[in-house]
C-alpha cells in the first residue's frame, strides 16, 4: 500500500563566469511560468557525497513572488535537497547551478550515487551556457569551458547578438567537435523558453535516445557538401567581408608547401586555408551528392593546390586549399563544360561566409565535424551485431577502471543477444544507469554508443566493442 510518486526532475546548469546563467536564473525566479521551481546555487560545486560533508559559512534561502525558492548552498547539497522534499506538495523542478568554474560532474554523479537522492530525484539534463563572445578565447586558454560543453545535454549559446554569423558557425562547429550529441540553442540575453531547459528528459531512459544520425557516421575529411547547376565560364567564390586591396600584402604567395591536411590547427602557417574539392556529378540532386562522397574522399587524400586570393580553381576533380586569411577574399571557379558540380568543404562554409556568387546549391548536407582542436572529443559507434552480455560487462568494467576519469559522458542503446528489449544506458563519468527499454519489435537492431571524453582513442573503443560482440 505504498504510493510511489514520480521523481522530481533536476537540471544541472553550468557555464563559465559571465555566460549569462544569472540572467536565466533571474527569469526563472521572476517570470509567471506557473511552475514551482527550487533554484539551488551551489557554490564551489561541492556536494555531500559519501566521503565529504562540507559546509561553508553561509546558507541562504528565500522565496520569490512567483512561488519559487532560491537557495545558496556552499556545502551540503544532499542535505538541502532532502530538506526541500519535506513538504506536502513538491516542487515541479529543481535547478542546481554550479557556479563559475565548477565541474558539473560531481553534482550530477550524486544523483546516481546517493541512495536517498536516487529515490526522490531524477537527473533530467546537464545544461551548459556558453558566452559566444568569449568562448573561443576561453576554450583555448583553459580546460573548464571544453569540459562543461562535454558534459552537456543542451548547450545554450548565449550573447549571439555580440558576434557575427561566421563566428557562431565556428563556435557551433567547435562545440560539436567536443560534444557530438548535445543540442544547441542560440540565445541572446538567455531568452530561451523555460520549458526547453526544464524537463528535457536527457537522462530518462524511457524516452527514445536521440542521437544525431550524422554524428554516428564515419568521419569524413569535410564538413559540408553541396551540388550546383553551373553554366560555362568563371564563377566567383567569395568569403564574407569587405576586401581591402590596399592592405593586401602579397608575401604569402611564397608559400608553396604541401597541404596534406589531416586535421588539427594551422600551425606554422601565417595564413588560413580552407580545403575544398570540386568535382563534376551526374545531376544537381541529393542522390548525386551522395554518390560523390566516395570520390571526394579520394580527392581529399591527394595533395592540395594552394590558391591565393583572386586565384583560379580550374582543374577538376581537384583538391584545393584556398587562402581565406583576409575577409572578402575571392576566387574564380572556372567551368568549361556546363553541368552539375559538387563542392565539398573542409569546414562549413558558413564559418567563413563562403558562397558561390549568383548560385545556390540545389542540394546540400552536413557531415560530422572531425577537426578536434580540443583534446576532448566525441566518438560514436554504430554496429548492428548483437553483443554478448558477459563480455559487454567485462568491457564496460575494464573501461570504467582504466578510462573512467577521462570519459565525461557515455550513452547508448544496445542490441544484446538474448534480449528482446533495447538495452539503454546513460552515464556521467562512468556512473551509469542502465535499463531494458521497449522491445525492438520490427525495428532494425542496431547498437549505437557515444563516448565523450578527453584523449579518447577511437581504435581502442572500437576494439573494446569488438570484444563484446557475440560469437554466433
Amino acid at each position, binding site marked *: *500500500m*505504498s504510493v510511489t510518486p514520480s521523481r522530481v526532475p533536476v537540471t544541472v546548469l553550468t557555464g563559465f563566469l559571465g555566460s549569462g546563467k544569472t540572467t536565466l536564473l533571474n527569469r526563472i525566479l521572476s517570470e509567471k511560468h506557473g511552475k514551482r521551481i527550487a533554484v539551488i546555487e551551489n557554490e564551489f560545486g561541492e556536494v555531500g557525497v559519501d566521503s565529504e560533508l562540507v559546509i561553508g*559559512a*553561509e546558507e541562504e*534561502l528565500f*522565496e520569490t513572488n512567483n512561488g519559487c525558492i532560491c537557495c545558496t548552498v556552499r556545502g551540503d547539497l544532499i542535505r538541502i535537497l532532502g530538506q526541500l522534499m*519535506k513538504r*506536502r506538495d513538491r516542487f515541479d523542478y529543481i535547478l542546481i547551478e554550479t557556479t563559475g568554474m565548477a565541474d558539473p560532474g560531481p553534482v550530477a554523479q550524486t544523483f546516481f550515487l*546517493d*541512495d536517498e537522492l536516487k529515490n526522490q530525484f531524477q537527473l533530467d539534463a546537464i545544461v551548459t551556457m556558453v558566452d559566444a563572445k568569449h568562448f573561443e578565447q576561453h576554450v583555448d586558454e583553459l580546460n573548464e569551458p571544453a569540459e562543461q560543453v562535454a558534459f552537456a545535454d543542451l548547450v545554450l549559446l548565449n550573447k549571439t547578438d555580440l558576434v557575427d554569423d561566421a563566428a557562431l558557425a565556428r563556435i557551433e562547429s567547435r562545440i560539436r567537435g567536443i560534444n557530438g550529441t548535445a543540442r544547441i540553442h542560440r540565445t541572446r540575453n538567455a531568452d530561451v523558453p523555460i520549458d526547453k531547459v526544464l524537463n528535457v528528459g536527457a537522462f530518462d531512459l524511457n524516452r527514445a535516445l536521440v542521437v544525431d544520425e550524422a554524428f554516428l557516421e564515419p568521419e569524413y575529411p569535410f564538413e559540408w557538401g553541396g551540388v550546383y547547376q553551373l553554366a560555362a565560364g568563371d564563377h566567383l567564390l567569395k568569403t564574407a567581408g569587405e576586401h581591402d586591396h590596399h592592405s593586401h600584402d602579397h608575401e604569402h604567395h611564397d608559400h608553396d608547401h604541401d597541404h596534406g591536411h589531416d586535421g588539427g590547427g594551422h600551425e606554422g602557417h601565417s595564413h588560413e586555408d580552407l580545403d575544398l574539392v570540386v568535382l563534376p556529378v551526374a545531376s544537381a540532386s541529393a542522390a548525386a551528392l551522395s554518390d560523390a562522397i566516395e570520390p571526394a574522399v579520394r580527392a581529399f587524400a591527394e595533395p592540395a593546390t594552394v590558391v591565393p586570393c583572386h586565384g583560379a580553381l580550374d582543374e577538376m576533380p581537384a583538391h584545393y586549399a584556398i587562402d581565406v586569411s583576409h575577409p572578402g577574399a575571392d576566387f574564380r571557379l572556372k567551368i568549361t563544360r556546363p553541368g552539375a558540380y559538387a563542392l565539398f568543404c573542409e569546414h562549413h562554409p558558413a564559418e567563413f561566409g563562403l558562397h558561390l556568387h549568383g548560385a545556390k546549391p540545389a542540394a546540400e548536407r552536413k557531415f560530422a565535424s572531425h577537426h578536434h582542436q580540443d583534446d576532448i572529443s566525441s566518438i560514436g559507434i554504430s554496429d548492428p551485431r548483437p553483443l554478448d552480455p558477459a563480455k559487454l560487462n567485462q568491457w564496460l568494467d575494464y573501461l570504467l577502471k582504466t578510462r573512467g576519469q577521462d570519459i565525461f559522458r557515455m550513452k547508448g542503446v544496445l542490441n544484446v543477444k538474448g534480449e528482446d528489449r533495447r538495452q539503454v544506458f546513460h552515464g556521467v563519468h562512468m556512473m551509469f544507469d542502465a535499463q531494458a527499454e521497449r522491445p525492438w519489435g520490427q525495428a532494425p537492431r542496431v547498437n549505437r554508443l557515444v563516448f565523450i571524453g578527453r584523449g579518447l582513442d577511437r581504435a581502442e573503443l572500437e576494439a573494446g566493442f569488438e570484444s563484446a560482440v557475440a560469437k554466433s
Partner: protein
Amino acid sequence: MAGKQSLSFALEPRGTLSFDDYLADCAWSPDGRQLAVAGGEGNIGLASVSDTLALRNIGTHLLGTLAVAWQPRAQCFATSGQDGAIALWDAAAGTQLKRWKPAVAATQALAWSPDGQLLATAAGKVVSLWSASGDKVHAFAPAASTAVALAFDRPGSDIGVALNGEIAVHRVEKSRYETRRYKWPGACLTVNFSGNGRFLASGMADGSLHFWNRSTGKDSQMRGYDGKVQLVGWSDNSRYLASSAGNEVVLWDFSGRGPEGTKPIVLSGHTDRVDSFHWQPGGEHLVTGGRDWRLSLWRPAKAGQPVDVQMVDAEISAVRWSPDGKRVAVGEKQGRLTVFDLVAR
C-alpha cells in the same frame, strides 16, 4: 485456558490530529501530556494529548524546521529552522520565549543535557552550548567538517558529535571541555551512546554501522546494509542496537560476548523504507514506521513477526514513545498525527 500465557500487546489508536504541514518530527513533554510538532514547511505546533486531543500552530521557522527537542524536567522546548534561527517555546502558555540566530548556517541538530540545564546545538562546523534561557555558555572550536548529529550520554557528562571521519566526544562536566576522538574513515551520520555508557555507535554513509567500546577503545564494523545507515538506536537496557538503511531493521545483541561474529536479528515486514523507529523507554518494545504506511510493534525475543501492525493514512515520518512508555505518537508526511495507546490483549 490452561497453562501460563505470556502477555501480548497491541497499539490502539486513541485519536488523530491534523497538522497543517509535513510532520517532520515531534517531541513529548516529560509528563506525557503535550507534544511539540515540527513541520517540514516550517510550522511549529503544540498538541495536548492528555484527556482531550487538540493541536494548534504556535509559530514558524521560515522554509522549514530542522529539529525539535523538549527540555527535560521543564515545560519548554527548543526548535531550529532553515531560517538560521533557534527558538525556545513556553509550552504552558504556547508562546515563544526567545529566538536568536547564532550563525549564518542553519542549526541542524539540537540536544538537551539530561538535567535540562544545557542546550547543545550544531550549526555547520560549530557546536555550541547554551543555558536554559538561551545565553551562550560555550562554543567549541569549529570542526573540520559539518556536525550532523548530537547526543549527550545518559549521565550528561559527555556530548558526542557526528562528523566526517570521526565522532568527537566533548566532556562537559564541570565545564571541562576535553575532547576524545573516535576515528573511522567515512561520514558518520548518527551518534548513539548506550545507556550503560559502555558503547558508542554510529551509522555511516558508506552503508555500515560502526561502534566503539568506550573503555577499551576497540571498534567494530558491521556491514551489509542496503545504503546509508541513518537510523540507529539503543534499547533502554543497552542490550540491543537497532539500525536501519532500508525496509528492514537490524538488531545487534550486545549481551554476553557481544555481537561480533553473530547473526543479527532482522525485523522484516515493511514493504518500503523504514523512516523512523523508537525504543520504548523502560521497556523492550520497538516501534517502526515506514513509507508503506505501516506502523509495526516488535519485541526482539519474538522477532519473526511484529507483535502488532497498524495502518495509517500516509507515509510515516516520525514515531515517538511517550516518556512513560505507554503511548506512541505517529506523524505522517501529509500532516496527520495519531496517538496510540499500548494495550495488553
